[in-house]
């Protein structure tokens, strides 16, 4: 079980958080302009990387804030946490 450094609250146990899947998938501004395939790409297609992955996390049982996290899925090492409006770090 990880210790996650919530950008708003500090270090907390993983049990307080929930994972929201891959980060930096932006909802299209004009969904109606998209083809079925383009929409499906946004809707369904997610990476499942063994290695460094950018993820969304929610401090569900804490401040309820969403933030991003860079985690190596092969060893659970957390490389960075950053707020939603911050640029992803170069890992």
């Amino acid at each position, binding site marked *: *079980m990880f210790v996650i450094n919530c950008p708003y609250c500090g270090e907390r146990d993983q049990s307080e958080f929930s994972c929201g899947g891959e980060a930096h998938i932006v909802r299209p501004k004009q969904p*109606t302009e998209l083809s*079925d395939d383009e*929409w499906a790409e946004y809707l369904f297609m997610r990476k499942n990387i063994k290695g460094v992955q950018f993820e969304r996390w929610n401090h569900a049982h804490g401040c309820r804030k969403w933030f991003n996290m860079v985690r190596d899925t092969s060893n659970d090492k957390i490389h960075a946490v950053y707020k939603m409006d911050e640029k992803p770090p170069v890992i």
Partner: protein
Amino acid sequence: MTKYRINKTRFVDQTKTVSFTFDGKKYHGFEGDTLASALLSNGIHLVGRSFKYHRPRGIMSCGSEEPNAICQINANTDLTEPNVRATEIELYEGLKASSQNCWPSLNFDIGGINNLISPFIPAGFYYKTFMWPKSFWKKIYEPLIRLSAGLGKSPTQPDPDIYDHKHEHCDVLVIGGGISGIISAKIAAKNNLKTILIEDKNILGGSTIYQNNKNFIIDNQKSNEWLMNEISELEKLDNLIIKSRTSLAAFHSYNYLLAKENISDHLPLDKKNGSIRQRLWKIRADKVIVAAGAIERPLIFNNNDRPGIILANSVKKYLDFYGVSSGLNNIIFTNNDSAYETAVSLFEKGISVKIIDIRKKSSSNIVKNAEDLGIEIYWNSTVVNTFGYKKIKSIEIMNLSEDGSNVTGNKHKIQCDCLSISGGWTPMVHMHTQSGGKLDFREIDQVFVPSEKSENHINVGSCNGDFELEEIVKNTNNKVKKFLNINESGFDKISVLCSKELEKKNIWLLPNTISDGKTKSFIDFQNDSTAKDIKLALREGFKSIEHVKRYTTTGMATDQGKLSNMHALGIIADTAGVKMGSLGTTTFRPPFTPLTFGAIVGRSVGKFFDIVRKTSIHEWHVQNNAKFENVGQWKRPWYYPINNENLHEAVQRESKAARDSAGILDASTLGKIDIQGSDASEFLNRVYTNAWSKLGIGKCRYGLMLNEDGMVYDDGVTTRLGENHYLMTTTTGGAANVLSKLEDYLQTEWPELDVYLTSVTDHYSTASICGPNSKKILKKLFPNKDFSDEAFPHMSYQDAIIDKIECRIMRISFTGELSYEINIESKYGKSLWENCIAAGEEYKITPYGTETMHLLRAEKGFIIVGQDTDGTMTPIDLQMDWIVSKKKYDFIGKRSLYRSDTMREDRKQLVGLLTDDPNEILEEGAQIVSELDKKPVEMIGHVTSSYFSPNLNKSIALAVVKGGKKMNGQKLFVPMENKNINVTVSDFIFLDKENKRINA
């Protein structure tokens, strides 16, 4: 003293006799004994029958690796526990233990016949045999197998014991209280680090604590004497917590560890005094030092499982720790030096001992020691068979060929009553790998050792592959200092002398004169898998170690293969001709030793198992005989039976009352989200399918919320309380998820919106009054309010005051009746409810529960999200096109409504179903077919809601049917177990299609 208790030690108090029973017979041991040592002191080796062949089995080890000596404790009581290792149970007065997996008795077990027919039950036997005929499985095969298989018996009564959880944080956690753990803990604690040392035994010291050989000297003392002094110094340190009887269960990432402490298992029943039985420690450690030690390996040869065959170091522990000799005529069979310590110790106590060594020679000090004493050693030899059914009586040995692959010469028979075996040592790398660490294979010792990568933990001592005393002490000191950034320690100038092993030899499967197929060379003693089984699996094409493990069940017993896994790997590697290191290992999963369910759940039992949410009106419901239904964590009144009414009768009465006069429902559990901010209207526009901008202040509107995939997610009525202020209601079960989803969009997709969400579900209680007389009741409650349709129309809200308390009245309806919902601060909920009941008395106001609510809304064809939908229904499927805005540019899920899949016309669509027999009530979930004769029968839909409607006096149902929209009037069938029910597709609004009652 019995004839096997030949030695006095400081660990067993021979002045304190403890009596216990085994299989109903009374025996004596001493304080400090384990059940195993006490049994051995009484000359008892036979303690169980093996799992598959029911072969007699004896105590084999002295710790958690024990595969054979597993017992049922306190059988037939509520305290009973199965599969407990006799080697770990501390003896207490009155302990009742019994053997397992034998019937009718340990000494005569009918299942032993499996041993005779064993050539016919190879690996995979059950998979291969009991397949045909199929009908035999349920009635013949399974009951028979269940009768003769299985280990202990699980308790049938609730566990009366108390279990506990505790969270702990420390700078350094040391796992294992052997010599390297003690050195590590002392260095850490002396350097002002908050340190916890856990040890699964009741006494610290590991195997060094009984290492009393003159060849092992630390600072001019025998190693055990030196360690005793270290332990007494350790106990004086302030910032060190020593937790004995505490075993590590799991080592998770980020140094999060679980350890189980046995608090009162070793106490007699009358001395437990209601104390906690076990405590699960949840430890978050900054640094972890694993000093878990190593486990001695058996040797794999024909009939290597007889009672009286014991691991050599365990024989030494029974002798020098418990004072018990496992036999009086011992033979030691080894491939390494460590077993010579056992031989010397036995010899020094006057017990007959001979040694068989597969090596050609060994020139170490300890071997010389044995030779000097005159102990007879058979070099370059192996055991090829053993004899004695319930206890070993003799063995046959032969010489090994030059390369060790075969046996030569004549068989030589030797009498014995105990055979001590040692196949070397396996480092306990479980903790290291559980935490994510990798392993390297060290060829010379044939062991997997941790490859150090982690910054947060290290392995020291024999679990790291350091087997010799000198390297254990020195390497531990150096590694711990480096790990903790410490320059010097009290162990820097220590002098260690020890015997060093120079000649090494390992043969995973010892050769024999007879073929593998005819030997019984056990690898996994508990699951009865043999070398033959492994080879068979390979011949049948299994290659991966994980597959071989599962096919042969090697390593899958309660001991998790602590003794067997390495041999299985070794034999696979040898047979397949590959390097062992390239095979890898099976995965080491927690827990290291079995955990009780009690320890896992701790205090979360009974009423603490889950949170129970009750509305402020709950007590009234209880007093008025409500039956409750669980909705999420909420307790909701289900129905209110009067005079022994059953569910059906009560619901019929309640629903009739609600339509004929007045009914009242506790609607407090509906999720309520307060939405404020200048962009609140825009926000609702984006999350609901319909338009919100033009909703007037004081008005209510029903909304449907989709997922981005276009499927219905939630619904509810939202009220505009002010220009920038809304109150959203959600389904009872969906409240938390809806809030979390809305927050997600607000924070991540639309951070520019000025909107704030607050859950107010628990802040307000809601009484919902419906029926033609509801307006009259409201007038009585709020005499100053104008309830005319003009002043207070349907789908609007007004503030009001009752008993000087502010409340909100919404005129909204989930039943199709004229209906009002009164929201009031929760603490006044019960008082409001009682006022409503009093005011409604003259109209026979009838409280109704969720079942009646479901019936009433079904009559009107209103869906319940989660009952009539299942995450695959779009609003179009539900025939709710009317609520999907065509004008709005975007809302959550809009684009998905135009995907080719969601536009298919043969999707399951919501319809009404009427049974041809109006008294026939369909079962919810029942499948619907259009053709009965066509095989295979195509299931075209299922019933989602079904009731007998007292207001229509017939059975009604909602269902989803493929292409149902166009099937109105069509005949379909609902096949049940005994009959086919004829049904007709109908409109799903069964009652008051014109919506007249809403303004009645």
